[in-house]
């Protein structure tokens, strides 16, 4: 009856993680001797995440994979946990900690891919406005940096990025305000998964769909729909399903003594993909299948 317990802790509640959860579910099917848990913290703060990890370890969890809100500075907390159970990072890494390995994508690379979409559809250059949840979060900073790096010297400028603290109403009114106040903007980038849908809705309300180039991240249904009908230039998707699925299998293997899957640099990169009009239908079909809808 003594099943081993594995936990996957995410940084905040969002649809994005539903895909990872689906991956974890699939892994559960293949790991009957394990009890897999998928944990959302009550709020997305490092303090709560660390308390959650402490509690899980106290409750007898055997291995943890975490998407940290703030990996850089949670190193000590990670090391404290890693001293008790094997710890893995996903989504965002803490390379200086004693975590066993990182499994996930590279946000910088994703940002570069997004920048490349913009370069492709804006050959004459342009002025872009970005929208994001937390400006200071690592994933946001890396994506922004990647985007800037890719458009450097191509006549495209990322004028500013507006934060909304993951308040959807603010996310929407931020776009509305830019449409009202910055007529020179001809390109918009939605860095968090819910930003592109808000851009879509604001443009639709203003009757400007198609007039402004939109580059998106992630696979919100509205985003995919907009890519399909040509309103968006494209979107960059990660593969969270694989993180959940592979992550759990990896931890189970590790607990059973199989360390062969851990590469020397301790980085297991699941590549990001560009979805545009060409491959969106196929991607959407796959997605539906995984989510079982």
């Amino acid at each position, binding site marked *: 009856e003594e099943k081993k317990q594995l936990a996957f802790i995410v940084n905040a*509640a*969002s649809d994005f993680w539903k895909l990872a959860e689906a991956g974890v579910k699939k892994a559960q099917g293949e790991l009957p001797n394990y009890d897999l848990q998928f944990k959302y913290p009550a709020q997305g703060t490092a303090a709560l995440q660390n308390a959650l990890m402490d509690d899980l370890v106290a409750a007898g969890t055997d291995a943890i994979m975490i998407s940290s809100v703030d990996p850089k500075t949670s190193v000590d907390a990670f090391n404290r946990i890693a001293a008790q159970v094997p710890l893995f990072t996903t989504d965002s890494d803490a390379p200086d900690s004693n975590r066993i390995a990182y499994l996930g994508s590279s946000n910088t690379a994703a940002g570069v891919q997004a920048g490349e979409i913009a370069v492709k559809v804006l050959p004459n250059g342009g002025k872009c406005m970005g929208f994001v949840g937390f400006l200071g979060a690592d994933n946001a900073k890396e994506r922004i940096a990647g985007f800037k790096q890719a458009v450097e010297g191509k006549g495209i400028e990322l004028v500013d990025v507006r934060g909304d603290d993951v308040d*959807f109403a603010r996310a929407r009114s931020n776009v509305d305000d830019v449409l009202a106040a910055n007529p020179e903007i001809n390109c918009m980038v939605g860095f968090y998964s*819910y930003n592109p849908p808000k851009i879509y809705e604001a443009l639709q309300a203003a009757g400007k769909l198609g007039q402004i180039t939109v580059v998106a991240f992630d696979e919100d249904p509205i985003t995919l729909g907009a890519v399909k009908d040509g309103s968006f230039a494209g979107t960059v998707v990660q593969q969270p399903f694989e993180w959940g699925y592979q992550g759990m299998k990896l931890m189970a293997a590790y607990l059973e003594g199989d360390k062969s899957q851990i590469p020397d640099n301790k980085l297991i990169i699941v590549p990001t993909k560009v979805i545009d009009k060409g491959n969106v239908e196929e991607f959407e079909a796959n997605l539906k299948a995984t989510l079982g809808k």
Partner: protein
Amino acid sequence: MIKKDIGLFILILVVGTVVAIINPLFLSPINLGNTANLVGLFGLFAIGQAFVIITGGIELSVGSIIALLGVLFVDLMVNHGVSWPVALLLMLVLGMLMGLMHGLFITRLHLQPFIVTLCGLLIYRGVARFYTADATAGFAFGDSFPTLEWLTTGRFFGVPHSFIAMSVVAALMWVVLHRSVFGRHLYAVGKNEEAARYSGIDTKRVIVAAYVICGLLTAISAIFFAMYTRSISPSSHGNFYELYAIAAAVLGGFSLRGGEGSIVGVVLGAILLQVLQNLVNLLGIPSSLNFAVMGSVILIGVLADTQFAEFRKRRITGRGAG
């Protein structure tokens, strides 16, 4: 009362003028429309909050109610094929029931409003998150409810319907609060519940009614919000909105001790808060400074208002004594 409102009105004018001078786009119809829309959305539940605050109570669960009702509303229509008028009606009834429950807990079981509605804040959000298993509830691409969308997000000669709805509600509630017997009873209960009871006022019923009204207006606003954001992440939708509502009321001259405040005040309070939000984006202020700017303007405004009022009072008594 009216003097306080004028002070707030002047503050809004001053802030608006300064912003318009720096960036004339502030006065563009499109920007005014957007701001009016948000004023409508926030004003609706702020008016509800005002009723509760007048009784000396507080309603902390506003944000969570907006999240829960939003999730249910969208889910009923999208996943259960419920027609929108039915879903809408259901949400309004639910909102009123929540208010009723809060009111009964407070008056019959003698719990503190802060505790009851704090539990509401926690429970409703928890239920909303559990209901969707922390997923976002939203319309699929292409889902369309033309009448509902026109009603909630449409515009009439450029004036957003949400703003019109808020104005109608405000006018109605103005009559209720400032002209009706019930309104007088509300003030009486807020000022001195015991004296009100001795005067034969059914204080419990009055208090319960205030929470029911708050629940109803919050539910209306929840529908507007759901249609505005079109997708609801139950963990973050409406977070902190109770603070907005309370802040709008307090700015508008309400006292948390109850018995004070006017509808005009709370509407002006809601307008000021939205103008401040708008200003940050329009002036290109780093969004990290958003909060700081809001806080400073509120502080300076309130300060100017009270200092001016005291100055005037001193001048009057000074003259009287001379």
